[in-house]
């Protein structure tokens, strides 16, 4: 096999310019796909962290059975009571791999500075648990002023455009109004502890974050609509969901559990769009690689027709001829992938050095353009391109093998 590989390699080097063009086509294609894959990997990772920690979704969210379907119509009925909150929290946190289980309430209403009012959407969170969920991610969304804290339950965090619209800055006061679960309008004073950037134009003019107790007071309830669970390992999300669902059901709690990616519509949609772009680019590159290899191997077959006839006359079987050309195609794919990997490393290093940034649509602040080094993707892509080049070479290789020996020997 090695001797045939050596022959295949020498044949590739026979027409250096043509082989070089093909190798470059494969290498550039490889680098384009792998860099884009590295970029999307980083983006997915960022979006995942943003959903789990930034949006405060945690890894799992437990709802009372029916909440997602009918909760808006009859919230009282589909919210967890105080005792249920305690029971669920205990059952969940008893499991190893669970960092915490914390109640949250989502609500909306009207916020006013005393003169002007506008709508708001808010998340009521337990400040200490929220800090745990945010973790290091909090550094990416700094708050001007102070964050939520247990001592000042009426303190709120207000998104920057909303604060700007109401002319409220940190340390200023306002009023929030929202309907209680009983249907009465309730109003409470707030103190703007901090102003933050949600990172999205769509939410920067309406989001607020309240402490959980304050949100309950505004809704005049001791209940909650969800319990957020943070895990140690994101990879175990699916497994933990099954386990917790079984455990809670057997404890007599009718509930449903959603994972972070099921709740983060932005993540799902963004990922769907990026996956589609990746597939599109991948297909274009694959077509280029296949066409380049088919062209190169087709030319090689044409130029070496007489040699093919000679090898057949010397006793090489049709399968042997096919294998020889397929091997050359495969080698082109392998060498192209290696050059592509080297190109990938160079571009990756340059990106890391210059740290470019860009502002995606709908995002209020520039984000760094980061490319992950995904070794697994590089290896898989190499294998994919080698196989593809091999398959692309089989078409001309089969043609070569089928040639009539006499005609091949007479070819000039």
């Amino acid at each position: 096999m090695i001797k045939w590989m050596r022959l295949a390699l020498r044949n590739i080097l026979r027409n250096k310019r043509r082989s070089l063009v093909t190798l470059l086509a494969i290498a550039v294609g490889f680098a384009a796909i792998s860099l884009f894959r590295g970029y999307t990997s980083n983006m997915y990772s960022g979006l995942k962290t943003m959903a789990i920690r930034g949006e405060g979704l945690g890894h799992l969210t437990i709802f009372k059975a029916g909440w997602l379907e009918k909760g808006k119509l009859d919230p009282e009925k589909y919210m967890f009571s105080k005792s249920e909150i305690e029971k669920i929290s205990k059952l969940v946190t008893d499991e190893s791999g669970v960092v915490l289980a914390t109640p949250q309430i989502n609500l909306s209403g009207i916020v006013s500075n005393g003169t002007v009012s506008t709508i708001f959407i808010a998340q009521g969170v337990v400040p200490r648990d929220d800090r745990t969920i945010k973790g290091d991610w909090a550094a990416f969304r700094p708050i001007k002023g102070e964050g939520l804290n247990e001592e000042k339950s009426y303190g709120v965090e207000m998104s920057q455009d909303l604060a700007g619209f109401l002319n409220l800055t940190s340390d200023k006061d306002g009023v929030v109004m929202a309907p209680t679960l009983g249907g009465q309008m309730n109003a409470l004073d707030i103190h703007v502890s901090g102003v933050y950037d949600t990172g999205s134009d769509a939410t920067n003019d309406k989001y607020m974050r309240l402490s959980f107790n304050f949100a309950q007071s505004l809704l005049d309830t001791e209940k909650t609509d969800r319990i957020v669970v943070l895990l140690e390992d994101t990879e175990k999300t699916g497994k933990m969901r099954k386990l917790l669902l079984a455990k809670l059901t057997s404890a007599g709690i009718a509930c449903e559990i959603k994972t972070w990616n099921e709740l983060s519509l932005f993540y799902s949609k963004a990922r769907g769009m990026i996956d589609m772009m990746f597939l599109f680019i991948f297909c274009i590159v694959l077509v280029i690689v296949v066409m380049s290899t088919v062209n190169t191997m087709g030319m090689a077959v044409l130029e070496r027709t007489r040699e093919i006839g000679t090898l057949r006359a010397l006793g090489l079987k049709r399968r042997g001829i096919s294998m020889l050309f397929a091997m050359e195609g495969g080698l082109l794919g392998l060498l192209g992938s290696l050059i592509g990997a080297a190109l990938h490393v160079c571009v990756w290093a340059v990106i890391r050095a210059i740290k470019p940034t860009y502002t995606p649509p709908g995002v209020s602040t520039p984000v760094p353009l980061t490319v992950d080094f995904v070794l697994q993707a590089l290896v898989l892509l190499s294998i994919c391109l080698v196989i593809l080049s091999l398959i692309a070479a089989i078409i001309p290789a089969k043609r070569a093998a089928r040639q009539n020996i006499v005609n091949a020997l007479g070819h000039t």
Partner: protein
Amino acid sequence: MSLIEMQNIKKDYHLGETVVHALQGIDLEIYTGEFVAIWGPSGSGKTTLLNLIGAIDEPTEGNLVIAGTDVHSLSDNRKSELRNETIGYVFQGFNLVPVLSALENVMLPLQIKGTPSKEAKEKALYRLQEVGLTEFIHHRPAKMSGGQQQRVAIARALVNDPSLVIADEPTANLDSETARMIISIMRDLNEKDTITFIFSTHDQRLLDRVKRLVRLEDGRIIDGGNPLTGTDVSHGTHNVSVLNSSHSEREGEVLTAWPVEGATPLRGQTQAPLTNGGQS
């Protein structure tokens, strides 16, 4: 012992609507250890005949037996094995693989056969030594003269210890001195290893080196013309035995080609063609 048996072999080529009868009923037997030249003008069917004997082409009609095997009954793979193990080829244009050295070119048939590299190298070196190219084993074809390339081709043809070596106009691209040298090498190997050599040529100057001459014309083996006088070439006359079906019909008897050096014809009941003095 008969190595090649051809019975009523016909070969037609289709050029558009025109049918070219390249071979028109060839009966020929060649014996182990013979040194045979197929002689005739261009277009007489020499190459076609060699292609059929070499099992790289199929006859339109007739039976061909090589080393006791009916070639027609073989699959493509078996034919490849037959070519690899039984037949060696020397081509007019040398047909060496340009990216391989002389040694690697000679090793090629053994590698196709699956011989271990060490053994293949030893055999190839021996054959290159036989053709006097020990100093050129690492040279690529482009760095060698035509004569040297043809000697590499001969070494390659012999490396698998074949029963038969076929050479299609092996001297056509060589000057006359080199051509004589190539024929001498082939003749020496033929005598030393009793390998059957069949080569085609239209170079009359080489015919005095052959043991047996088969003359082709218009796709038939004929006994007419100078070579068919059948005189021993080593003594200035040609030593030929042929069978030509049309001629046979004319003579009213079946004739068989056979070698002249004491060989016994396998077919044919007469030595009539040798009345031309073949055994002088």
